[in-house]
């Protein structure tokens, strides 16, 4: 039987006019970005610059969608459990034999489903650079899958905030704080000094060239894999040589050290590992959310 919370929440979501507005706004942003970036490609002549603009369009569309997902997901999810608590309907669910994990999963899948819908609706626009030959269809699919994983993780962060907060508004604020906190904590290694043994290799072009992708991967601070932003840069770098000009092996710098290792390890490989790590983090947050739903439910208000 389909999770009742999911089907019920989805029914209500699709009956709301807000859904149509979000969908329209999403497509408007996607199409606007594509037209802005690919205007040259739509002209009568196909030039090298035009093809480059197709690649740039793909990169910008990926980045735009990534940030939209990170911005929309917490707002979309933070009111789910907190909203039930606010409406005083959470208790009615808890007295049924529905486990809190089932409640959280249903709510999360409802929000994730909405994000999937947005990504699917935007997919034709995403394939425009592929039609123009700037990227391959497989690369677009890889990008879409990466965004789906990011969307799932973002939903899970919002879900945790929703399970902890008493009101939707508090849940929203908490969700953005969580997103900001995770972004900061997982970005910190970019600004940390790598061990001397690592920097000796990274800043020596010959040594770096001999480094195997596996060894390069092992040298990257593991926390970085939990940062979907790092994963996105790695994916785009692997697919389109995004930021290649910045990767000058002879230069030094903490940021470049991480990028050089990423380049050596292979962008798509890093993106895959990052997706796996983010997926696991999301699942862990869901389990944590479920624990909070029951605990909060047990605490409840004292009335008489």
């Amino acid at each position, binding site marked *: *039987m389909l999770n*009742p*919370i999911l*089907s*019920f929440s989805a*029914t*209500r979501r699709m*009956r*709301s006019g807000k859904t149509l507005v979000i969908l329209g706004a999403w497509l408007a942003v996607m199409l606007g970005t594509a037209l802005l970036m690919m205007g040259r490609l739509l002209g009568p002549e196909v030039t090298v610059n035009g093809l480059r603009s197709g690649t740039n369009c793909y990169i910008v569309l990926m980045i735009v969608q990534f940030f939209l997902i990170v911005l929309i997901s917490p707002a979309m999810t933070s009111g789910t459990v907190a909203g*039930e608590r606010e*409406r*005083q*309907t959470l*208790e*009615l*669910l*808890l*007295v*049924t*034999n*529905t486990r809190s994990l089932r409640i959280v999963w249903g709510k999360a899948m409802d929000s994730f489903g909405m994000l999937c819908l947005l990504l699917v609706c935007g997919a034709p626009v995403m394939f425009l650079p592929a039609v123009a030959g700037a990227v391959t269809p497989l690369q677009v699919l890889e990008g879409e899958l990466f965004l789906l994983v990011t969307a799932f993780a973002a939903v899970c962060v919002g879900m945790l905030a929703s399970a902890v907060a008493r009101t939707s508004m508090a849940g929203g604020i908490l969700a953005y704080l969580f997103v900001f906190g995770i972004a900061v904590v997982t970005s910190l290694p970019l600004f940390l000094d790598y061990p001397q043994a690592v920097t000796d290799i990274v800043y020596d072009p010959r040594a770096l060239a001999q480094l195997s992708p596996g060894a390069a991967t092992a040298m990257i601070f593991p926390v970085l894999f939990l940062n979907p932003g790092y994963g996105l840069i790695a994916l785009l770098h692997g697919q389109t040589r995004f930021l290649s000009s910045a990767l000058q092996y002879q230069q030094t710098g903490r940021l470049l050290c991480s990028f050089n290792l990423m380049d050596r390890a292979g962008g798509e490989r890093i993106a895959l590992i990052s997706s796996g790590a983010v997926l696991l983090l999301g699942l862990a947050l869901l389990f944590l959310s479920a624990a909070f739903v029951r605990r909060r*439910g*047990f605490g*409840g208000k*004292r*009335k*008489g």
Partner: protein
Amino acid sequence: MLRLDKLTKQYGKFTALDGLSLEIADGQLHGFVGPNGAGKTTTMRIISTLLQPTSGTAEIDGVDVVRSGSKARKLIGYMPDFFGVYDSLKCWEYLDFYGRCYRLSAGERKQMADQLLDLVQLTEKRDAYVDSLSRGMKQRLCLARSLIHDPKLLILDEPASGMDPRARAEMKGILKTLRDMGKTVMISSHILPELSEMCDSLTILDHGHLVFSGSVEELSEKMNGNAPLDIRLQAGCGEETVERAVACLKELPFIREILQEETTLLRARLEGGEAETQQILRELVSRNIPVCDFHRAPMNLEKVFMEVTVDA
């Protein structure tokens, strides 16, 4: 059906429920009465597995609600004192959703939803959106929701609060029907007369303590013994006579309080039964006080409630 044994709930240093012990037999309509903050909702939430007791046990049909919450939830239908509205949802969908939460099959859900909408007289509102219903209708729909999985014990927390008299009457009718169907119903209210009309037995709580538990008749009997004594003196007997009567009553050790309700009407509260009442009359007559009327003031349930909750 329901057995509570020394049930206690503390919130920090505050004791919301203090060692409540209680038994409710199968098929009873049991009223749970007390002023605000008495511990009614706390008790009901513990029984409904929404709250963990600090100590003590609660069993439904032999199932411990703390240790076997999942089993207990199948036996309970809980209706809180609020109605959580989901917008964009029709009445039948609302019931269907909760039916799915209880893992009923599609056929069972449809059958139960139709039967319950009929029971709560909302069949014609089947396809209406929940948020378009009146308060009384929402309460009835909420009652139907609590019955969707055919529970043995119904826990209703102030189901008639905020309803107009007509809606209250309709709710009472439905509750009587449920009792006739063999359901055990535990219903709370802070209005004793409202419950006494339909309940088989009552529990009165005050400040987390059990004040009374038994049938309505037992409560009335018990409280009539504590009813105040109205003594009417002869009209125009004079202030001096009234003062003599008051002085005479004050001399009696079992008199707790004397109030002058009207010029010649005195109301005395006493500790004791018929022997003490006889002694009062004897004393008054022996001192030539012109007593015209002498009787225990009848206690209605509202007065009973005020008495027991003040004394606790």
